[in-house]
């Protein structure tokens, strides 16, 4: 099965090609079969390849499949190879497994939409690019996939392009992540200049000998790569695009903006771990960025009213946990949380999609209410998924990974990160159950009709099962790729930390029940108090980052644009083009069409050639 590894990304790619060429000509049923089936094939091949890899693990922990060498000119031999190790296997499992379930759900969610085929072609292209990102053995190919997923994200956020707001959300996501990508590209250039290779295993093997710990260059490279990672993973300070990205169809939010693409930054840092270990300052900042982002996102989520935006901020804060874990040196815990997060966040988004469709595209949670009877499956999905998000002790997948992160942070002596994580967990419980209590309990506000069919129930049930403790028991084969964290093997305080973080989650839920079940008198009073109102507004505006960036970057840029309205800069370039055009005018006059002149020109040319030959 391992030698079929290329099928993993080829199958969605073919799906994309077939769906794009057949747009408008194939039925929705056929598009479903192609679009969902191609991901299913990928998932099966990943499963087979994974089993084979794990049962016959090579000594270096990786299987490399060279697909082709582009060319060989001198010493320049760019080759294209796939590399499967524990880390990329985990990522592939998440991408194809969760991706398959989301595709299946989308075939229910998008049914009847005009752009059904277009939707699945973009989704397939996304999965192919994402797999390319995690399977490529070369940072250049990683970057290629990185840009590919960015493009698909843009296309899918603006999927319903008739609404200009969606288009501008798509552009925002594209431009903001592009800022990070530019940093990353510069980082890759620097890395190539220093090491002369972008082959991941080679670069990681030579880096410790080439750089000294804490050296300027390696620190710069690590920070530049971090720039790419924060852009893609919506971390401070490039986090502003993610909430707006919710303009896309909900399965897109589930797949791209929760389960896979936004975690690419975590993957990148884990992949280039050696560089970050050589640059402790950069690694320290990874943790700080994660901690600050998770707190800001937590506070913001407290006052949001749009069901998808709440989930978006929760995604941001959960990725903050992963960054925190990376910063604390808990590499395996970060990837473990990446996986469990993919399970429960995909579940939450899909059930949010079910709720939104049931309420006729209503997204304001205060216009919903009492839906628990009418929508039992989404209700239980939210209870389990929300529980996992809050890390309800021992019952949910989220607990196992988040507790691991907190314990590792504590054991590694990162007390500030630990406390930030603990407080973030408290916030998470409050905002998550605020959402659940508001939507599913209380008075019924609107009519709702439940979905049905296998494509609707199967993904929810599977993800629901994976979000319980079952998902927490999955053992990831990361031992050969990533080092053990500082608190590996347990310690005296491990149980205490688990109890502490567990009780924080439970207390948060209890507090949410107190605040948001029933009449919410206290919340209303707080919201209108002199201190509460401006604070709520501040949180609601996500700490004013959009406002700040508008003043700092957008307005000055627009001012520059106005100044340069008549293209002063272009004129310099156009002068070159203009002179070429006039030269064209002159030279064209030589094409007279007269044979006399042509023969004469041969003679003149001969004189020239002989002059050069004899005189030089």
């Amino acid at each position: 099965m391992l030698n079929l590894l290329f099928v993993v990304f080829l199958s969605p790619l073919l799906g994309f090609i077939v769906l794009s060429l057949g747009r408008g000509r194939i039925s929705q049923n056929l598009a479903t079969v192609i679009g969902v089936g191609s991901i299913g094939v990928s998932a099966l091949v990943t499963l087979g390849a994974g089993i084979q890899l794990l049962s016959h693990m090579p000594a270096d922990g990786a299987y490399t499949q060279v697909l082709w060498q582009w060319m060989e000119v001198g010493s320049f031999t760019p080759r294209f190879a796939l590399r499967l190790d524990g880390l990329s296997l985990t990522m592939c499992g998440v991408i194809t497994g969760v991706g398959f379930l989301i595709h299946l759900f989308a075939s229910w969610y998008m049914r009847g939409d005009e752009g059904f085929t277009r939707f699945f072609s973009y989704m397939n292209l996304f999965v192919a690019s994402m797999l390319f990102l995690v399977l490529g053995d070369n940072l250049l190919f990683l970057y290629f996939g990185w840009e590919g997923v960015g493009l698909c994200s843009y296309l899918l956020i603006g999927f319903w392009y008739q609404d200009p707001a969606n288009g501008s959300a798509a552009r925002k996501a594209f431009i903001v992540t592009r800022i990070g990508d530019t940093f990353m590209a510069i980082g890759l250039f620097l890395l190539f200049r220093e090491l002369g290779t972008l082959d991941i295993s080679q670069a990681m093997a030579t880096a410790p000998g080439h750089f000294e710990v804490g050296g300027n260059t390696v620190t710069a490279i690590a920070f530049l790569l971090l720039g790419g990672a924060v852009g893609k993973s919506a971390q401070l300070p490039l986090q502003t695009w993610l909430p707006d990205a919710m303009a896309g169809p909900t399965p897109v939010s589930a797949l791209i903006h929760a389960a896979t693409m936004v975690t690419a930054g975590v993957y990148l840092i884990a992949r280039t771990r050696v560089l970050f270990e050589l640059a402790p300052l950069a690694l320290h900042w990874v943790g700080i960025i994660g901690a600050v982002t998770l707190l800001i996102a937590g506070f913001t989520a407290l006052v949001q009213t749009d069901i998808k935006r709440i989930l978006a901020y929760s995604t941001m804060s959960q990725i903050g946990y992963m960054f925190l874990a990376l910063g604390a040196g808990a590499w395996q815990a970060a990837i473990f949380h990446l996986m469990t997060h993919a399970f429960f966040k995909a579940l939450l988004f899909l059930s949010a999609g079910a709720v939104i469709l049931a309420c006729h595209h209503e997204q304001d949670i205060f216009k919903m209410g009492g839906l628990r009877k009418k929508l039992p499956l989404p209700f239980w999905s939210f209870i389990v998924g929300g529980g996992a998000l809050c890390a309800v002790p021992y019952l949910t997948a989220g607990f196992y990974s988040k507790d691991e992160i907190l314990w590792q942070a504590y054991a590694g002596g990162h007390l500030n990160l630990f406390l930030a994580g603990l407080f973030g967990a408290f916030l998470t419980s409050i905002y998550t159950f605020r959402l659940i209590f508001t939507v599913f309990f209380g008075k019924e506000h609107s009519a709702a009709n439940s979905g049905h069919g296998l494509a609707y129930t199967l993904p929810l049930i599977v993800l629901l099962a994976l979000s319980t403790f079952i998902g927490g028991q999955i053992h990831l084969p990361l031992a050969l790729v990533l080092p053990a964290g500082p608190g590996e093997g347990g310690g005296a305080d491990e149980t205490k930390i688990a109890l502490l973080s567990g009780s924080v989650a439970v207390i948060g839920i209890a507090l949410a029940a107190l605040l948001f079940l029933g009449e919410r008198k206290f919340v209303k009073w707080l919201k209108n108090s002199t201190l509460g109102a401006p604070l709520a507004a501040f949180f609601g505006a996500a700490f004013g980052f959009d406002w700040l960036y508008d003043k700092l970057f957008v307005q000055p840029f627009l001012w520059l644009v106005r100044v340069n309205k008549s293209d002063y800069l272009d004129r310099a370039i156009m002068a070159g083009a203009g002179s070429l055009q006039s030269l064209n005018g002159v030279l064209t006059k030589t094409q007279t069409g007269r044979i006399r002149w042509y023969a004469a020109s041969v003679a003149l040319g001969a004189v020239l050639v002989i002059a050069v030959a004899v005189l030089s």
Partner: protein
Amino acid sequence: MSFLYVHGGLTPAQWITLLPILILSATIVFVTGAIAIKRHHWWNATISVAGLNLALLPLFVHFWLPQLWTLPLPQTVTPLLGIDGYACFYMAMILVTALATATLSHAYMEGYNGNREEVYLLLLLSTLGGLVVVCSRHFASFFIGLELLSVPLYGMAGYLVKERRSLEAGTKYLVLSAVASAFILFGMALIYSQMGTLAFAEIGAHIGVIGGSERSVIVLGSAMILVGIGFKLSLSPFHLWTPDVYEGAPAPVTSYLATASKTAVFALLVRYFVEARAYQMPSLVNVLSALAILSIIFGNVLALRQDNLKRLLAYSSIAHFGYLLVAVIASGPLAVEAVGVYLLTYVVTTLAAFGVVTLMSSPYNDHDAEDIFDYRGLFWRRPYLTAILTVALLSLAGVPLTAGFIGKFYVITAGADKHLWLLLAAVVLGSAVGLFYYLRTMIQLYLRQRWVQKYSAPLNWAQGTGGAMVVLLMLAMLLLGIFPTPFIALVQAAGLL
């Protein structure tokens, strides 16, 4: 030493290596007879194509199925012809080009109401000339081959005799080509006067020990040969005929003129420079540098605002041969490899571009579909054909993942290896200008066009052999761009003697 073979007759191994040339000659006789017996367009075209395929067969087996059988290379067949891997590679390329031209001609000539059959005869004769040229290592075979290559081309360019422009193209090419041949002959005579030999290898052996005024005469002779070759390759300042002839000649003939005839002459130029050690005369290298820079400037600037696709491709071919000269100037094994790869990519791309023009055109109309406005909105009428032309234009521009990129990359690597910065600057700037006019043409293909067009390929264009050929060429362009390794290995294997 090699004179001895003449008296002893040819050995079996020599006969075998001559197979492509022999089969092609037999095909010519056969087609002549077939036309004399009965004029039948399809039959005569098919016999020609079959003959070309047969001639290609030994080369194909040699290169692609070496485990089955290989040609006994290298062989020196009389002092005139040297058949080595290099010659075989270019023979194969010329035969494939002729095949493409024959199939395209069939699609094109269907609409012609004069005598359609002789075009294949002329094509085969010219191809034979091309084969002789790439094998020649002697001035006599060089000149005979070159004339055999060129003379049928006059007839082909003027084939649509009732068309004023076709006739004009044939006449212009005839007159100017004669001038160029005269230069070549005179140059050969000058060299012979000092060397007393016409064989490349013997010239090369003595060139190092000759000095003084004798050397000046040899330089003068070589320069005159370069004038003639420069004309055949349409290098500036001998390029003025190119757009007129490209425009006037029927589209399939233009594609042949742009590819096979230039490939043959270029292969010869490289062989002459290597075997006759012309690199030992720096002044000749200076001449080549001047021609290269002039060609890049003239070709690109003249194409800039050109609205006629055939003329545009003519100018672009001038620039492309300027780029190619940079590889020749670089010299060394990498240069020979670079020339091979570049010519391969150039031939495939140019054939595809002219193939689309051919499919769009028909002698029924008073001229070919050559105005780029004839192509406006083609995408909305013939999307797949447009895709092929798009890939061809991208490849001409040298965009990565198409064939053209690989070729250009090679040329730049070869140049950078020898620190030819001035020439490389010209290549880079020329390519930048080139991008403008290729994209300018490409935009036209995708504009929305509301009114009915005079020119369009028939709806079933892909079902004929010409259409199939163009589709194959597009696949080849992409394959060369994405997975060039086997082709590069082929070029590397086909080194000079």
